[in-house]
């Protein structure tokens, strides 16, 4: 009953001040909405259990190098050894991502799939929609080729035919029998649309010949991920002792599949979560302060109520109801905004990948989000309501009624206001530094120089199936023909062919330099470089600048030739000022063959295979002519002479004329590829820019509110001091110095924590340390300006009163 009347009273008070109610509600909506958004977004991306029975224990085992979580697959033999020895994992299975060409009614189409051990379906406790999955016998080397297809593939390629089972389909030129169809949206382990058996026996081949696989398993009950990772680390150490050449520095770790995708970026995720909590605090402090101001204004009313015998609990309840109503209304608005934001996010994140999006990217309000919402709601009600309630119900009501406290802000209130200002400065600076690092990182990423001319180029990938292009010469002939025929197309100009264009990940290999001595013959003793194969002429046409020597020419063609071009970064790292021309290097392998030395014939400007500022982007590269080491998968870069559509048609027609079962895929402009590559960062930076703007607004309004409140409460004190002869400048200086002191108290810890988080993020995002310094300096100046302005404006207002008016100020 009392509760209801208190609630009604709070509602009446809020209705009486619509401006105040709207402001506080919107601040709360922004705080809860933004924080909740980040938590929900991150949970879906990284932490959410996969939507399968026992999804919480399902993990992927990947390879690490010198402790860095690279997320690379393991050697199949290493995986086998781990499977036999590790204690904490159950139902272990292996898989590898593959890209295949599937020949259908409309020609060949490229699909993402996996080659996996048969238990991959059992791991997800998922039964096929139709038919069955493959078994152990079908996984043996030489077994009849079989395939399980995905729902969308079944619908698109076979029109959902009910008699699909047992049909034959050509995959990479080989007929495969369709065993089953998986349910809709089943893309496990990430974007697979078809599942093939591995058909490999690692024991039958050498370590060098064994393929690379990821492990999958369930963590046994009673074991934690940490314990399993310790076991994996120990086992990998043993392997490194047994195979030092290939395994020194290598480790293994298990994570849930979404977490494995995050790799070392997990530092960014944690920083984002900290920022989300901080912005919630910021919003809560602001609303808390506004409610506190109101509570202080109503101090006399509260004193009268106490004098009339109101119990303290009732007074607290009345004051708390305001917080409950504001936070709940703000929370609901925030939740609605969140639902809209997550819907937009789903659309935006879909553009991050060329093909399908990983299956767990299903953004929306789920049980986790609602739980966090409730937690946030209770926390904000406590933070915003407790301070005013406590402050206003515990005072000396007799003193208030006697009006004996004129002249100065009470010590407790003054201290509380100072703590709030300092907290706001600390929180805002921390959030803004984190946001600043992300925004600057995106700025640098978008303006990155990859070392090539990327405009007006169409790119596409072509994968030659091993069934029909098993011989190196076949591969060389096909790509030579393709290049020459494409160049004759009117829609296309120069055609460049390479295993990886700048901006695309390339295989990294250990390189030995002739004449140099290495500590041991372990992989880790040698320097590493990107190993890229190019068709002669491609580097020049791409605009990769020649610094010394020459580009590749016809004289370098053929598997019996051994020439190489290196980047100037490679020269600087390994030859210093000496000319490298004529010197020899070799790719380190352990196949027992005679070292195959390559002579350096040219030096080109550094090109980046990843973000130029990242460690991978700074890695030197070595280029070899394609014909010296032919590969099945190549990337085409075609200078456009017409529009993209015409050029794409010309490419498809040319490929069809050469081999009707050969599709080109990932067809897009080079610029579009690079833009998509920066998509996640662009999105994140957009979110954090929003965070930053919200933070600046919340901080500016919050600190202004606090300062204004503090100085207003000191108006009489200011009047007294002026009556005693203090000049305006002196009072203004005192107040500004007090503001500056609070700036230091909040700013220094804010800088330390913000720079700590920012440094962690800059390591992952490859933001240079100078940028962090500049961000921190700029932000402390901005916050400083906010604090001083927020102090100056109410000070000026207080000083504009005649001292006589200030003395009588209520």
């Amino acid at each position, binding site marked *: 009953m009392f509760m209801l009347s208190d609630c009604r009273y709070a509602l009446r008070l809020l209705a009486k001040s619509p401006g105040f109610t709207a402001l506080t509600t919107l601040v709360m909506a922004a705080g809860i909405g933004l924080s909740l958004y980040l938590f929900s977004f991150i949970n879906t991306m990284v932490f959410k259990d996969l939507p399968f029975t026992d999804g919480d224990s399902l993990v992927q085992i990947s390879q690490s190098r010198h402790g860095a979580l690279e997320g690379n697959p393991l050697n199949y033999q290493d995986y086998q050894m781990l499977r036999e020895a590790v204690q904490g994992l159950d139902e272990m299975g292996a898989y590898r991502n593959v890209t295949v060409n599937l020949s259908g009614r409309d020609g060949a189409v490229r699909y993402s799939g996996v080659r996996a051990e048969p238990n991959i379906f059992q791991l997800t406790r998922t039964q096929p929609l139709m038919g069955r999955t493959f078994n152990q016998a079908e996984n043996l080397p030489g077994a009849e080729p079989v395939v399980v297809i995905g729902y969308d593939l079944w619908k698109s390629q076979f029109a959902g035919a009910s008699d699909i089972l047992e049909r034959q389909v050509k995959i990479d030129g080989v007929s495969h029998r369709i065993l089953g169809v998986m349910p809709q949206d089943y893309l496990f382990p990430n974007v697979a649309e078809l599942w093939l058996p591995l058909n490999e026996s690692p024991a039958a081949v050498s370590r060098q010949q064994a393929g690379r696989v990821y492990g999958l398993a369930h963590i046994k009950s009673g074991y934690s991920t940490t314990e399993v990772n310790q076991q994996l680390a120990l086992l990998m150490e043993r392997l490194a002792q047994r195979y030092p050449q290939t395994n020194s520095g290598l480790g293994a770790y298990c994570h849930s599949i979404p977490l494995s995708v995050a790799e070392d970026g997990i530092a960014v995720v944690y920083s984002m979560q900290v920022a989300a909590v901080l912005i919630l605090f910021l919003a809560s402090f602001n609303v808390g302060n506004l409610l506190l101001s109101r509570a202080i204004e109503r101090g006399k009313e509260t004193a009268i109520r106490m004098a009339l015998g109101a119990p303290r609990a009732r007074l607290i309840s009345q004051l708390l109801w305001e917080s409950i109503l504001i936070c709940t209304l703000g929370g609901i608005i925030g939740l609605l905004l969140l639902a809209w934001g997550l819907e937009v996010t789903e659309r935006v994140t879909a553009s991050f990948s060329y093909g399908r999006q990983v299956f767990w990217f299903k953004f929306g309000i789920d049980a986790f989000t609602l739980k966090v919402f409730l937690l946030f709601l209770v926390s904000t009600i406590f933070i915003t309501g407790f301070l005013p309630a406590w402050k206003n119900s515990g005072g000396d009501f007799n003193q208030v009624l006697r009006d004996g406290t004129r002249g100065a802000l009470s010590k407790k209130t*003054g201290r509380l206001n100072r703590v709030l200002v300092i907290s706001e400065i600390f929180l805002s600076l921390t959030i803004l530094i984190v946001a600043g690092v992300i925004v600057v990182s995106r700025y640098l990423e978008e303006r990155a120089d990859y070392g090539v001319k990327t405009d007006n180029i169409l790119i596409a990938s072509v994968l030659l199936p091993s069934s029909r292009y098993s011989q190196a010469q076949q591969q060389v002939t096909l790509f030579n023909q393709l290049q020459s025929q494409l160049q004759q197309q009117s829609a296309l100009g120069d055609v460049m062919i390479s295993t990886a264009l700048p901006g695309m990940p390339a295989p990294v290999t250990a390189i030995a330099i002739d004449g140099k001595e290495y500590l041991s013959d372990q992989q880790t003793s040698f320097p590493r470089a990107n190993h890229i194969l190019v068709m002669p002429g491609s580097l020049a046409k791409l605009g990769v600048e020649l610094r010394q020597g020459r580009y590749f020419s016809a004289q370098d063609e053929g598997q019996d030739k051994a020439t190489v071009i290196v980047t100037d970064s490679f020269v600087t790292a390994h030859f210093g000022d000496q000319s490298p021309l004529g010197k020899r290097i070799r790719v380190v392998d352990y196949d027992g063959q005679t070292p195959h030395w390559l002579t350096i014939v040219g030096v080109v400007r550094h090109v980046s295979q990843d973000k130029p500022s990242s460690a991978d982007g700074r890695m030197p590269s070595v280029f070899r002519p394609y014909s010296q080491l032919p590969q099945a998968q190549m990337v085409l870069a075609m200078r456009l002479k017409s529009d993209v559509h015409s050029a794409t048609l010309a490419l498809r027609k040319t490929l069809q004329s050469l081999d009707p079962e050969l599709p080109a895929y990932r067809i897009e402009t080079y610029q579009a590829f690079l833009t998509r590559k920066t998509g996640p960062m662009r999105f994140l930076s957009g979110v954090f820019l929003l965070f930053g703007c919200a933070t600046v607004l919340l901080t500016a309004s919050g600190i202004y509110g606090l300062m204004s409140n503090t100085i207003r409460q000191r108006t009489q004190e200011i009047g007294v001091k002026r009556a005693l002869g203090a000049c305006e400048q002196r009072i203004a200086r005192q107040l500004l110095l007090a503001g500056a002191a609070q700036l230091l108290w909040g700013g220094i810890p804010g800088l330390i924590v913000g720079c700590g988080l920012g440094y962690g993020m800059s390591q992952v995002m490859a933001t240079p340390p100078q940028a962090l310094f500049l961000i921190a300096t700029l932000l402390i100046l901005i916050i400083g300006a906010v604090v001083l302005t927020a102090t100056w404006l109410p000070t000026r207002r207080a000083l504009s009163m005649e001292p006589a008016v200030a003395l009588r100020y209520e």
Partner: protein
Amino acid sequence: MNNLLIKIDNLKKVYYSEELETHALSDISLSIAKGDYVSISGPSGCGKSTLLSVLGLLDTATAGRYVLAGHDVSNLPNKERARIRNQEIGFIFQSFNLISDLDVKENVALPLTYRRDLSKAQRKQWVKDALDKVDMSHRAKHYPSQLSGGQQQRVAVARAIAGKPSLLLADEPTGNLDSKNAEAVMQLLDKLHADGATICMVTHDPRSASQAKRRLEVLDGRIVSDRLQLNPQSEDKHHVYAK
């Protein structure tokens, strides 16, 4: 009149609000000599506190001339007005207006901290002298909240006299005190007057007003009576000073 401390001519103070023009003071002319003890009384809202505020340079007049100690202070810049308030005028307020964060000694020292012509030792000595005069030295380390109303007002008086001002302005100095403490404060003002202080006091209380040598009555922003009380505390004799 070399002995003249205050001379105001045709002083006006008008407050403007959106729809209203309130004449708080209308054509007031007044002279106060050094060593005078003047009480200003009148009903609420008559303008007596406004007059005191203008005299104390806490407020500016809308029109008229104000000469303090031979200097025209009608149109001084804020900085100069602050200096005069600090060095020439001492204020005693009804609600004491002590700074609650500062102890007694610091409160009394406050006006002295705004002066550059005093050494630290001088400042200390002046504070001690002021506290001795009001008999509050023993409470120097106490905070206002630890003092009674009477004690707080004595501290406020000490603060007002600490800078050795030529004029003491008191706005209802006994308004917040019980009769016993009010009497003690009035005795203190008497003592200060006897020592040569010029005092100008706004009061509602006829007993307090009767202690002054000269009694002004204000009504509707004008001085309607200006009597010299030859025998303070009696009300039978008076002279008209006001023009």
